């Protein structure tokens, strides 16, 4: 472990910010301010923050619907994410896509998410292909759930990445459920990491609630990929702490299971570890907490004050052409 104290505190900041925004989104949903569906990443903070933190600026990520932390670490402004949830024109997708979908912005190296799970996976492999073709030394990373591993796209993507030894890191967030479906109904094996052997590259298992473990493992995989060593599959074991989306109260999850994992809360665990190691003083904690609060409140205020999209823009920007809707958006940023 060769992270400096400041780096460790940085990670702490992102973990806290992720949790705070996630909780606020939960609140806004419960207040009826978020229409349609929305997702919580509670319990997944170590995976989204830890893995994204292992990348360089010009690497590319394709996070999924539980990776709020990854979007934040990559620099997507909290206000844009908040505005996105409220359907505002200032959201990343300008009100066109919802919640964690379509939060794409290549200026932050982020590919927007599509529902059809895991659509981002073969696309990320394509990103890795372009890095390999151009010999750029960049790395592509994508996240997906345990459920997504049952799909053809998972297989086609990993297989192809293996054949070409592409610089791609696959982060599987095994949170034990896909909607109401437990992993026992999703695959007949214990560890998804074992499948990597079938694609000719390493698969490893990490504690998905330990941000430093996630970070270390990912960093090693990223370094290997960058050096031409090919892909890695990292299975992060964790637990989905709320329902699939907010409308789902997850009655099907045994209480004991949640209680057990509540003890392993990734944010609290990390906080305690940093306090124990005397990296996180009470002063620093308060300072970070106030930065988190400021960002959060500013984001919400911005989102709430932002206008809804103008219906006159409905049909704009379906196709890309010079001067089109999206070029105007970029120029006005």
């Amino acid at each position, binding site marked *: 472990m060769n992270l400096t104290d400041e780096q460790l505190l940085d990670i702490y900041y992102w973990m806290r910010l992720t949790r705070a925004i996630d909780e606020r989104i939960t609140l806004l949903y419960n207040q009826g301010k978020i229409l349609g569906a929305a997702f919580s990443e509670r319990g997944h903070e170590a995976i989204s923050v830890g893995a994204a933190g292992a990348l360089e600026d010009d690497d590319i990520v394709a996070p999924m619907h539980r990776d709020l932390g990854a979007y934040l670490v990559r620099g997507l402004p909290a206000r844009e994410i908040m505005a996105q949830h409220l359907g505002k024109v200032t959201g990343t997708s300008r009100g066109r*896509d*919802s919640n964690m979908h379509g939060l794409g912005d290549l200026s932050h190296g982020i590919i927007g998410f599509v529902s059809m799970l895991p659509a981002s996976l073969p696309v990320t492999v394509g990103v890795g292909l372009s890095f390999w073709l151009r010999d750029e030394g960049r790395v592509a990373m994508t996240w997906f759930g345990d459920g997504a591993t049952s799909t053809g796209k998972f297989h086609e993507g990993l297989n192809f990445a293996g054949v070409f030894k592409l610089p791609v890191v696959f982060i599987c967030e095994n949170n034990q459920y896909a909607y109401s479906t437990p992993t026992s109904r999703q695959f007949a094996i214990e560890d998804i990491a074992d499948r990597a052997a079938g694609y000719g590259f390493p698969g490893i298992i990490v504690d998905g609630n330990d941000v430093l473990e996630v970070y270390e493992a990912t960093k090693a995989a990223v370094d290997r990929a960058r050096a031409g060593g090919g892909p890695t599959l990292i299975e992060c074991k964790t637990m989905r702490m709320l329902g699939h989306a907010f409308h789902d109260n997850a009655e099907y999850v045994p209480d004991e299971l949640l209680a057990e994992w509540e003890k392993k809360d990734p944010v609290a665990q990390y906080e305690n570890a940093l306090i124990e190691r005397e990296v996180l003083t009470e002063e620093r904690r308060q300072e970070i907490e106030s930065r988190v609060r400021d960002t959060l409140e500013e984001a919400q205020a911005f989102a709430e004050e932002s206008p809804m999209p103008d219906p006159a823009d409905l049909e704009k920007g379906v196709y890309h052409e010079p001067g089109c809707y999206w070029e105007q958006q970029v120029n006005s940023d």
Partner: protein
Amino acid sequence: MPEITYLQAISDALWEEMERDENVFLLGEDIGAYGGAFKVTKGFQERFGPKRVLDMPMAESAIVGAAIGSALMGMRPVAEMQFADFISCAFDLLVNFAATNHYRWGSPVPIVVRAPAGGGLRAGPFHSQNPEAWFAHVPGLKVVAPATSYDAKGLLKAAIRDDNPVIYFENKYLYRHVKGEVPEDDYMVPIGIADVKREGNDLTVITYGAMVQESLAAAETLADEGVEVEVVDVRTLKPLDEETILNSARKTGKIAIVHEAYRSYGAGGELAALIYEDAFEWLDGPLVRVTAPDTPVPYSPTLEDAFRPNAEKIVEALRDLATY
């Protein structure tokens, strides 16, 4: 007759068919203990056991493949796509395997694929689509899209008893927004028969799915203005009830086609071609289409409201047509 929701009608049809025929079984994601994303199959697993209400891995091609294979063995699978949008992930097996099998070597493939479609629920580009036109273009598939509780129940029963693959588009907006009377006795709505939902001599609206309600509301408004609108609910897109459509077209001579799907190359095109071919001499005015525009389904309410056809937009179009 009891009044039930469109959702309940679907649920009841499944239940009764499972009671009637032990070959009928359900497969899909989260349909068992959870009862499905929309709770259509709530309580089914308790009644019928886990082998007749199968929770599947998240793999639409596996689901459709499982349906086809078991159907070839004489079972009557009803597969649920969690949202119609995800049917794109099982596209190949539906259009190439299920659709062509009987033509190619004579074994029927009696599967039903339930596809909860449609928008108006702030569900964004991937949980709001209306992909019926893709399937209606494929020989060997049947495609239905009920608009009322009565039709939802009757068409689902007919679909389950049909020997051919049927894509059953159920509209999510209608689930809880529509209630209607449904007989207590077993009945079916035959696949391939349209229904004139309202008679009128001045204009014809040809529509299906969620737009039937909107068209009927629009017809009310026009009636107040002295224009009698006939509303033809196609109900089955494939095979199409050409006669009912043509009869109405010939009667009024002025046609509006209304659907929730994207405009270009949508189902409206086929309906237009049919009328232009076979009712040409009776036509008194140009075709009017009221549809979604050619953009993905947007999330934000201001955009989705502009996107989705509704009674108001239909009224406007019909007024123009009436004065033509």
